[in-house]
């Protein structure tokens, strides 16, 4: 623990993390269908943030600032938030397969967001995330009840999650088919697969605070999460108020998932796979694990976004396709590992 990480080492690690994140954002802004030199990216940022006044092509500057950079920032927030949610849910439920997507929280959030968008209870910048949040909470509640009825256990909650996902996806399809115009329906279906295409700066101003607040709340509970290593009763006997911790962490996971789903749709496997990668790299202590998971998630999503824009020339793949292509085999690996250990 802190024997290996002195306070100097900790500060150093924080700076290194920040540097890695900035480099990833920089790459996200520079790489694309038209490659733009890194110096131009730097000059654009300088122009926009400090009025540096470098003479640049307005088109390049526009692409970097309004299109790619906002997108990279949202991708980073989204990756960090999903990875944090996954890490927290895995520790809290003591289930290596838990993540917002598999537990049906993302599906519930989609249903909530779509209900607001189409049935229109005053659709807007904040009402959609709010609808998604409600949907996410309802989905988690339903899945929890189902899981308890099915006899707790690792398999029970995953099966309950599958049932919940199916139900909420069906509800979403129902609402879309029933109420949306053909054009709305096409847009929504594309968004549901996970899509960063329409993302602009206002989205970033929602995504960044959500991820940062989420990170802060999770870090605040890092020691409490450590105490869950041997289960919730062991946590209680170590002085943790189990119910309060559950409420805070499930709430903040649902909040992060909901905000990200309402901006970019539901993206699978990031929340599942990234925490495992982080555990392999830095160990199981949450004080280190959580920031590591957030960083890896952020970088992974920026890279996935770059791939989604460049893999097929002239076409943008939904980012959910990329994360699933990487995530599904990783999921299979985790399953296999568990079997080997049991």
């Amino acid at each position, binding site marked *: 623990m802190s024997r290996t990480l002195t306070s100097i080492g900790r500060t150093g690690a924080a700076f290194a993390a920040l540097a890695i994140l900035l480099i990833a954002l920089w790459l996200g802004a520079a790489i694309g269908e038209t490659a733009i030199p890194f110096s131009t990216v730097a000059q654009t940022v300088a122009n926009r943030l400090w009025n540096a006044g470098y003479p640049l092509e307005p088109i390049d500057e526009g692409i970097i600032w309004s299109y790619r950079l906002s997108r990279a920032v949202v991708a980073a927030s989204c990756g960090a938030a999903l990875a944090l949610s996954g890490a927290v849910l895995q520790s809290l439920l003591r289930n290596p397969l838990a993540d917002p997507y598999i537990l049906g929280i993302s599906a519930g959030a989609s249903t909530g967001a779509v209900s607001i968008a189409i049935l229109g209870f005053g659709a807007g910048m904040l009402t959609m995330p709010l609808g998604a949040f409600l949907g996410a909470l309802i989905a988690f509640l339903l899945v929890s009840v189902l899981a308890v009825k099915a006899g707790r256990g690792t398999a029970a909650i995953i099966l309950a999650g599958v049932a919940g996902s199916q139900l909420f996806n069906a509800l979403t399809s129902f609402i879309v088919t029933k109420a949306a115009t053909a054009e709305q329906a096409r847009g929504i279906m594309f968004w549901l697969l996970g899509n960063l295409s329409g993302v602009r700066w206002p989205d970033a101003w929602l995504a960044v605070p959500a991820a940062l607040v989420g990170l802060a709340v999770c870090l605040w509970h890092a020691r409490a999460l450590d*105490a869950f290593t*041997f289960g919730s009763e062991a946590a209680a006997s170590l002085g943790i108020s189990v119910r309060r911790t559950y409420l805070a962490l499930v709430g903040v996971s649902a909040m992060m998932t909901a905000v990200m789903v309402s901006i970019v749709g539901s993206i699978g496997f990031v929340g599942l796979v990234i925490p495992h990668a982080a555990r392999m790299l830095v160990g199981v202590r949450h004080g280190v694990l959580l920031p590591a998971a957030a960083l890896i998630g952020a970088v992974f999503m920026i890279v996935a976004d770059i791939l989604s824009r460049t893999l097929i020339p002239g076409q943008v793949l939904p980012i959910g396709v990329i994360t699933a292509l990487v995530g599904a085999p990783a999921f299979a690996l985790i399953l296999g590992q568990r079997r080997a250990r049991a």
Partner: protein
Amino acid sequence: MTLSADHVSWSAGGSDILKGVSLAVETGEFLGIIGPNGSGKTSLMSLLAGIRKPRSGAVLLDGTPIGELGRRTVAQRLAFVEQQADTGERITARQAVELGRTPYLGPLSPWSSQDDGIVDAALENVDMAHLAGRFWHTLSGGERQRLHIARALAQEPRILLLDEPTNHLDIGHQISLLDLVQRQDLTVVAALHDLNHAAMFCNRIAVMQGGRLVALGQPRDVLTEARIRDVFGVDVDIEQDSGGICHIRFLTRRSQGRTNVTRPASLSVMGA
């Protein structure tokens, strides 16, 4: 530092598990709780630990209902080792023991060298210092149980609650674990399966049957042939050695002849 249960009752799934149990733990004693499966030992332990709330009655820690004390305060005074707490996480032996410092650390308070010292001492105390760097899943049942005790010791409690601490250990590990617990200068309450172990290590024994406390006292007063037949449904011979310790010898059905082999109803109360 006192712990007592005052007419506590508890039920789960519509059936009463504990029915008005009262007992006071005396400072410094080793109190054993015995009884057949489903007699309410585990439930009583978790009520005493404050993890579950009694449906009626109260558990008092230093005169205050344990539910009114903060969880953190309780964890600084009493440590609880559950039955078979296990984990799939890749934590080291030392990290498992470090968890015991949780009640003393806030979200922002840093881990100190004092905490390191306490963890080192706890590992030393249970003779696990040489395995501190090993991963949890590579350790044997006996070693894991020692680490749980070390974790509890790192909480610096004055009362130690153990729920069947010797389950699934071989006889050598069972004896050395109880011996280790007895060596500590702590008040100990332990739910135990083995009657001979209870007789060897406990100052007093509480006998549970069907959710009720049916006897409480010194081993030689509590462990009688009649009571063991009544509560556990087995016939025994009891001898006392020169040190006053009871030795219980279980009689097989064959040695009893054909009579007297019907089991009392109490054994059919299984589960929970």
